[in-house]
């Protein structure tokens, strides 16, 4: 939304915006209540989501938390929390462009440098299943595309 607002204010240079240019504001107004509810639910469920995810990944493949001989569980947890919080605000403001610009482009190069793409791929794929247990179907429909964006950005070389 912020990126779209910024673009709108730059493009509307001394004229009135057209209906189609204002369409995104109508959509935001219509979904804002749902977005705010989803955001609050994610905030409340953050610890449970990450804990469930960690357990599921550990059961699936413990090497997902290893980088060579190093245990990177704490690093994974820190990164996952950070991405989750950025994702939540991106969903609230309907602004995946800002998520990309401020976090994902940078993080993609870091994950590649550490060879963590396989772990990221699993993380953001399984996270979609887990958030569905905490959110209603319409809420998950808003949030899962953001998690999928994370998976595609961080998980695949």
């Amino acid at each position, binding site marked *: 939304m912020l990126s779209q607002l910024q673009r709108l204010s730059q493009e509307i240079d001394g004229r009135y915006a057209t209906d189609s240019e204002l369409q995104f504001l109508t959509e935001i107004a219509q979904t804002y209540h749902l977005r705010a509810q989803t955001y609050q639910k994610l905030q409340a469920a953050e610890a449970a989501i990450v804990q469930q995810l960690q357990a599921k990944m550990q059961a699936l493949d413990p090497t997902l938390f290893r980088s060579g001989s190093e245990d990177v569980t704490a690093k994974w947890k820190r990164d996952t929390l950070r991405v989750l919080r950025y994702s939540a605000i991106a969903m609230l403001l309907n602004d995946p462009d800002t998520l990309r610009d401020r976090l994902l482009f940078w993080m993609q190069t870091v994950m590649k*440098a550490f060879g963590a793409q396989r772990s990221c791929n699993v993380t953001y794929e399984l996270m979609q299943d887990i958030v569905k247990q905490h959110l209603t179907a319409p809420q998950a429909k808003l949030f899962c595309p953001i998690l999928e964006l994370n998976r595609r950005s961080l998980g695949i070389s």
Partner: protein
Amino acid sequence: MTTATARPNLRNPKKHNHYGFREFFQFDPDKGTIVDWNGSQNILTTEDFIIGLVEGLQDEVGDAAAATMYTIGCEWGQKDAFFFESWFEKEYDRSIRQANLMFLLETWWWPLAAQGWGRWEVDMGDRKQGFMFINLFDSAVARTLGDVGKPVCYLYAGLFSGFFTELVRKQLSCIELQCYSMGETYCKFLLGGRDRIDAATFWQTEGANARDIEKRLRAGELR
């Protein structure tokens, strides 16, 4: 273009993902300055500036323009290596010698990418043989000059040579093997010891392309 000045953003100095346009650059309309996250003063330039620099130098020194740009790049790279070492240690609380090498290199390049020097990809597959390749996408110089049928990114080759020489504390040279200005989709640089770069330069003047040169280097040829 940058020069070091006071660090602008002390609000969250340990934040690492700070390369978004509005976050990385601090615009001060009163002073008329643009200072980046690491405290470097930046100057915005147009493509005309780059054309003026390259063509002006060509007019002044003729064929020596390429070597001059390379030397400017080397000095820039060496200075930037020291500057990088200092901000990296402040931001990450560790020496550059203790960091994962690929992470270190990406961290060095991020401010340059944010400043418009293009994205890069480092290929360290041949590191043990004493050379490596760097692919550069959206070179500011090549993009500006367009298809002129020859490599033009001497400034970048110098930058890589200067930076990596300081980083590994061993004299390294660099040559651009293929360039966007030769109609290629991206620029490719070879970084290594003097003997290998001299060999690559020789093969290039004999008409070898990037792929031929890669093949000959991997086969261990030195002319």
